[in-house]
């Protein structure tokens, strides 16, 4: 009986537990399916509200979002912190995409936006202290020379195949990124993933250049057509024409040139980004000149050996002195007087006022701001009165050299970030460049990174309203306009020298030659310091000083003096953009 009783109770217990399991399993199934339904609704909401413009079909978008949700499961409820500079693209990510990502994955993202200088300082602070301040940085690829030498940045190609395999988007499609050459070290490893790119291009008022009376006046004064300048002589003539001869258009004072000259770090970018490369100070080679790049730094194999002409560099070479001489001269002679005391931010808004005829190079990141309606530089139909075109080349420039600067803000991960936090941040990084999201982001911020977006129908539809941006990115130009390269071993330390020395030239305290000699010596001194603190086969090692003439008679950079004032050349817009 007892046994029977026990057996009976046992059977009842088993049946009961089966029932409970069944109920639990039904409840779980119901909960899971309810959760899936909620997730599906959220995903559909974001696709409808924000990501209807995409190079993917809706099904493919949903499939990508499902992958993100699955891959993010181990990190749900985590809050990750990332930082980037303050441009429209990143504000969109911080305000809209971070929310979408949280809704899709359950990972909260605090995406801070600040000045690029502050981003670099924060990256440095994390490197120095080892404290996990951020889980990821969107840092300009200009620091690639530092990242591949310092050993502090994660090699993303290895991470994607190894520790990060389970959190790497199968449809990331690296081949679709146009800027990977900028974020790859000489060792072949990928250190950064581009998030946004913009170029520095020539900007001019196409409506003024088309006015018959101005064209006739220019032709009479200078002997050639008022069109897109192909060299610095033509740029200078056009600058003089508007500032000195035209003076006023429709009752408003106008200037033939715009720049800025306040001694602060943004003056450094102004000079290091493009003045020397456009002048032709470096060697041939893409993405950067080799063995001498546009910063005037010579490398032997991958080792920086000097920046002064005496060590084979070009920072105090005739071409570099010519570049900065023209910068100072044009700022003083042809730009609004206030420009001398302006920095990057203050000068950025000036074009919108409608009294500048041209700018030798201008950041296309401002395209969105400069296409705002109801400004003096826009037509009533929403098309711009301005165009962007290839920048004019300086007297030392030769075929095969980079043509200008391109900024590639790129996802960068430091080894001091704990692995799980890095994985969660890597998911966010991929989300904001995923094909589901990327076209919409490109249309908002106009800083494309994917070829598929550039070639999309949506970009064709917008082209007429973007002043040449789409044409540029569809051309070879996107490979010829390049960021700072790998010859620069520590961008942060070296970049300070630019503005401190050039600032003394703009203020008149030093001649340009003195300032460039000073900066070249400061670069050499910093390279010598880095030689003692950096290790590895690509760490700096100063070359012995030789007479300047030794280097100036060698082929390539540093280059001997040439005729710096050739005849001005211009081309009609359509022909000029064919150079792209």
């Amino acid at each position, binding site marked *: 009986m007892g046994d029977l009783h026990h057996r009976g109770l046992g059977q009842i217990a088993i049946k009961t537990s089966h029932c409970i399991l069944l109920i639990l399993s039904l409840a779980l199934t119901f909960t899971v399916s309810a959760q899936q339904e909620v997730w599906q609704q959220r995903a559909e909401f974001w696709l409808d509200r924000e990501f209807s413009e995409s190079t993917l079909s809706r099904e493919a978008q949903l499939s990508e979002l499902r992958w993100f949700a699955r891959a993010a499961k181990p990190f749900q409820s985590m809050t990750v*912190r990332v*930082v980037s500079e303050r441009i429209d693209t990143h504000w969109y990510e*911080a*305000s809209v995409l*971070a*929310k979408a990502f*949280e809704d899709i994955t359950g990972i*909260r993202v*605090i*995406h*801070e*936006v*600040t*000045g690029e*200088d502050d981003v670099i*300082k*924060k990256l*440095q*602070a994390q490197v*120095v*202290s*080892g*404290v996990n*301040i*951020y889980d990821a940085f969107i840092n300009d690829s200009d620091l690639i020379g530092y990242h591949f030498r310092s050993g502090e940045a994660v090699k993303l190609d290895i991470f994607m195949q190894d520790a990060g395999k389970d959190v790497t988007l199968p449809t990331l499609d690296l081949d679709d990124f146009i800027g990977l050459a900028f974020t790859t070290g000489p060792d072949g490893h990928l250190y950064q993933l581009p998030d946004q790119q913009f170029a520095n291009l020539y900007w001019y008022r196409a409506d003024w250049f088309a006015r018959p009376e101005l064209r006739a006046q220019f032709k009479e004064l200078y002997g050639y057509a008022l069109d897109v300048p192909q060299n610095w002589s033509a740029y200078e003539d056009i600058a003089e024409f508007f500032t000195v001869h035209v003076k006023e258009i429709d009752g408003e004072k106008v200037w033939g040139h715009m720049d800025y000259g306040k*001694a*602060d*770090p*943004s003056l450094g970018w102004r000079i290091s980004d493009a003045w020397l490369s456009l002048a032709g100070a470096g060697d041939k080679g893409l993405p950067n000149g080799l063995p001498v790049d546009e910063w005037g730094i010579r490398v032997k194999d991958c080792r920086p050996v000097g920046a002064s002409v005496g060590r084979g560099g070009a920072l105090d070479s005739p071409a570099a002195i010519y570049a900065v001489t023209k910068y100072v001269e044009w700022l003083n002679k042809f730009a609004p007087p206030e420009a001398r005391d302006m*920095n990057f931010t203050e000068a950025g808004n000036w074009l919108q006022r409608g009294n500048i005829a041209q700018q030798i190079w201008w950041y296309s990141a401002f395209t969105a701001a400069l296409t705002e309606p109801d400004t003096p530089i826009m037509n009533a139909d929403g098309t711009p009165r301005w165009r962007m075109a290839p920048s004019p080349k300086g007297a030392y420039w030769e075929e095969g050299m980079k043509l200008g600067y391109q900024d590639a803000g790129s996802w960068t991960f430091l080894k001091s970030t704990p692995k799980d936090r890095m994985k969660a941040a890597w998911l966010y990084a991929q989300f904001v460049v995923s094909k589901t999201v990327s076209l919409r982001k490109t249309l908002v911020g106009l800083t494309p990174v994917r070829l598929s977006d550039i070639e999309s129908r949506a970009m064709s539809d917008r082209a007429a309203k973007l002043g040449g941006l789409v044409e540029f990115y569809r051309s070879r130009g996107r490979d010829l306009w390049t960021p700072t390269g790998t010859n620069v071993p520590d961008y942060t330390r070296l970049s*300070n020298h630019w503005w*401190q020395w050039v600032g003394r030239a703009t203020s008149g305290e030093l001649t340009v030659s003195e300032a460039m000699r000073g900066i070249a010596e400061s670069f050499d001194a910093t390279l010598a310091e880095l030689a003692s603190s950096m290790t590895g086969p690509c760490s700096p090692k100063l070359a012995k000083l030789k007479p300047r003439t030794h280097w100036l008679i060698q082929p390539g950079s540093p280059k001997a003096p040439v005729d710096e004032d050739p005849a001005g050349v211009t081309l009609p817009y359509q022909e000029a953009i064919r150079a792209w």
Partner: protein
Amino acid sequence: MPGKRAFLRQLLPWVIGAAVSASHAEERPHINLVSFVDSPYVLPVEHRPEGLVVDYVEALLKRAGFDFSMQILPPKRALLHALKQDNTCVFPIERSQEREVEFQWVSPVLISRHGFFPHPEKDIGELRVLADVQDYRLGSYLGSGIGEYLSALGFDVDYAATNEANIQKLLADRVGLWASDEVSALYIASRYGVELRPSPLIFFTTVRAMGCYAEMNPKYVQTLNKVLSDMHRDGSFDILKAAFAERLKLSFPR
């Protein structure tokens, strides 16, 4: 003779010791540290600076083997001192673009997070990203880098004379959210007997540094930076922070 030799043997350590300590005294730099009131990082207690960052900087200078003196001044005077006087450093200041060339930097001495704090008894709407605060009046104080940051982004910022005044403004509904360094907000609120809820949105991080006289011996700065890096990595600052929180009976965020 042996007596004389023995005397010399006894004298020798004294002579060497005196020579070493004289040379050490020559090499041992004296740094004038200047700061300003920034609760609870720098506080004047009976005319002496105290506070979390004071603890950090004292520990740093001691470990570096430097002599130092420390005084609290009004913020502008503190900056001016370090701009004009050799071997003088001001802390904790933000390393902005404009300031970059004016000092030599020892950094980071303080990493702080900034958040929005609502009235402790009021429910607020969803705050997930910075853009969500656009309908609020934000409380900050004059001279605050965070206040300026928010103003530059187009937010409605109300500036009080000091950060302490913001807790009263918040309680009186004169601001909708108090934008403050997290540790300062918790400290100030506790002094007023107010228990703040955790910030729903920690929106910004600042890294503050010690700015030293531009022409100061760069070797001193290198030494201080090296020791600072070691102290971050070996957890010295975490220990100081925990001890400070315990002293104040506060629970600081990680």
